[in-house]
């Protein structure tokens, strides 16, 4: 499996598109900048919803209203992150695909997307449910903490890709 991935990396890095990304000096810094700006939108949107879920902010607005306002930004930014991330992988395949930190980041991303999607559909189905009972309020807390931790870990992994020595 790992050998195949390594082979794929070597093939990809020899393609004309990868070689263009490698040789044009501004591609990687510019694409990383766009990647960071999209992360800014995701993290801030997530924090707005999660702090409200925890009852720490924005008591004057409903959870469902905040979710409707901010969660679409998360999904659209994730699309930008996918595209810019793909460019960065194409430019330096071995740096990412063979990197255990990158692999952990992708696994965490699946968790974060699942938590967000489940939360979003739950809120859409029953707009008041988070305020119905103490148990459900506790559920809101757990959801918010989980979401904050996983998204923060994803950002951390993203930066550490650059520092981890690997195959």
């Amino acid at each position, binding site marked *: 499996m790992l050998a195949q991935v390594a082979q794929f990396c070597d093939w990809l890095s020899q393609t004309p598109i990868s070689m263009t990304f490698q040789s044009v000096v501004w591609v990687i810094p510019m694409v990383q900048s766009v990647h960071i700006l999209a992360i*800014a939108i995701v*993290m*801030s949107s997530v*924090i707005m919803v999660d702090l409200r879920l925890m009852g720490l902010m*924005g008591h004057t607005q409903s959870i469902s209203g905040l979710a409707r306002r901010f969660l679409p930004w998360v999904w659209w930014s994730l699309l930008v992150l996918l595209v810019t991330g793909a460019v960065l992988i194409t430019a330096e395949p071995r740096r990412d695909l063979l990197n255990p930190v990158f692999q952990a980041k992708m696994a965490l991303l699946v968790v974060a997307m699942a938590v967000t999607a489940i939360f979003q559909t739950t809120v859409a189905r029953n707009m008041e449910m988070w305020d119905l009972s103490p148990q459900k309020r506790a559920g809101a807390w757990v959801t918010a903490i989980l979401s904050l931790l996983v998204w923060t870990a994803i*950002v951390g992994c993203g930066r550490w890709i650059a520092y981890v020595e690997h195959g």
Partner: protein
Amino acid sequence: MPVLQSFCEWLQNTAVGSFISGSTWAFPTIETIHVFALVIVVGTIAIVDLRLLSVASRNRSVSQLSNDVLPITWSAFCLAAVTGGLMFSSKAVSYLNNWPFRLKMVLLVLAGLNMVYFHFMTYRTVHKWDDAARPPSAARFAGALSLTFWIGVVVFGRWIGFTVR
């Protein structure tokens, strides 16, 4: 400026500066916290800017939105400033002579001036346009400037990592 130059030489030889430059894990760790803080700064500022530009949160009053968001912005900004200062101390002379770093600092000052002007001039009349989906042109202009400056801060910030020696 020789004063700045000798300050930077002193700074990078302090215990903190030389610890960070000598450690394998300190710089990446501080940088990770910096990234976490700065994405929150830029993202939450963008929430307010996009409201001023009447792109998003149009049915929320500007003052309520600012009151919700700006405490988060300021907390994250303090974290970003502290971690940024620590990274600077590890290689102060190199950063001082790095042009993306200098441009980033200029843009930070411009973003600050724009914010001060908005807060003390434009925002004084907020009671007249607090609920307006489309704020007055001075407010929209401040939002557009702020977005531009902060995007520039991110771009030049990232560029430092590719150019600093």
